[in-house]
């Protein structure tokens, strides 16, 4: 049981797809303009990851090695198309605001990456845990980026129920008059991500230096 939790934790923190592995940045940077988008995209990616990881690890012994990549792609594309249909039917507002980035999940490298490096080598349950961990890690990273961008870019934070666009869960506005709208632009996404990565790297370096000091003593 503990190793399953470790797999999940691994995806959220130690091997966070956005902050540590820097995978799937295109869609992450593009849609992280609001918390609602982040949650919606996070759910979509998590769902696709779970479906593709579980299916691929179930049939991993049946797929001939030579054609495993095309088979993975077909499975992932099917999962994404299913998500697209479901979102169009049940979350039309989110479907509109995420736009072209939903079909683009097909080419999101997190999904193919996990299929190739984890699901094709591990058991179904482990792959499921990995998918949940990676999905949550992706969602968490999106939430952090979009919270910063929305707060500074629009001067407030809001969250709308992804399943019902008319139901606002919360909406605050703090300093609307001095919001920096650059942060809502794509360049703002790069700046935000750069700052977060610099901070994480700073922490990691500090830890390494401390360990080295300890060894010297």
């Amino acid at each position, binding site marked *: 049981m503990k190793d399953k939790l470790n797999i999940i934790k691994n995806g959220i923190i130690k091997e966070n797809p956005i902050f540590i592995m820097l995978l799937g940045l295109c869609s992450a940077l593009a849609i992280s303009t609001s918390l609602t988008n982040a949650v919606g995209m996070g759910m979509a990616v998590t769902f696709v990851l779970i479906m593709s990881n579980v299916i691929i690890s179930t049939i991993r012994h049946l797929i*001939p090695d030579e054609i495993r990549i095309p088979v993975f792609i077909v499975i992932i*594309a099917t999962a994404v198309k299913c998500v697209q249909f479901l979102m169009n039917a049940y979350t039309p507002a989110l479907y509109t605001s995420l*736009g*072209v980035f939903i079909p683009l999940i097909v080419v999101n490298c997190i999904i193919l990456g996990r299929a190739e490096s984890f699901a094709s080598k591990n058991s179904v349950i482990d792959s499921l845990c990995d998918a949940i961990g990676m999905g949550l890690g992706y969602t968490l990273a999106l939430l952090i980026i979009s919270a910063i961008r929305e707060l500074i870019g629009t001067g407030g934070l809001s969250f709308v129920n992804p399943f019902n666009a008319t139901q606002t869960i919360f909406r605050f506005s703090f300093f609307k008059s001095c919001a920096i709208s650059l942060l809502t632009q794509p360049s703002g996404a790069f700046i935000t991500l750069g700052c977060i990565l610099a901070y994480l790297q700073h922490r990691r370096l500090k830890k390494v230096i401390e360990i080295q000091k300890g060894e010297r003593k």
Partner: protein
Amino acid sequence: MKSIMKLGIVLALVAAISGGMLSYVYNLTNPIIEAANLQRREEQLTSIYDGGEEFVEITDYIDQFSTITNCFKVVKDNTVEGYVYQMSVNGYGGKVTYLVALDESGIYKGYETIDVTTETSGFGSRVATDEMKAKVIGKDIGSKLDALTGATITSSAVIRGIDDAVAHYQMLKGGKSS
């Protein structure tokens, strides 16, 4: 040779199962999507032309314009108030569908997008915002409409579509007077 056959069969099998699953999900969700779209269009037709009581679909000359999907005559108290066009043009990433309303005196009465999901969020998708609406609504049909800076491809496509709607509108008018 044998292994190639085997690989082909496995791949075909995977593709077939995927196709079957997709068609199942499609059949499951399509009625909901269609109903939602229809309801949204109904709401948009009334919101784009407030005061319109009845929307009558007309098909005259429509086949001459590839961009016009539907045309509705707006009727109020048995007189024609204006026209609402449903347009579908090629934007940057794919089809952009929207409604444009013209009233009987030749003024753009309304503009509303239906589907801009093919356009890049934050760029082409700006044709769905009030920014674009402000450039269209209230203008005379003779005046030139400006594209949006930074979303030129999508907004020019939208404007070319509006021009088509105007051309069709004038054909309807011309047809009536002769």
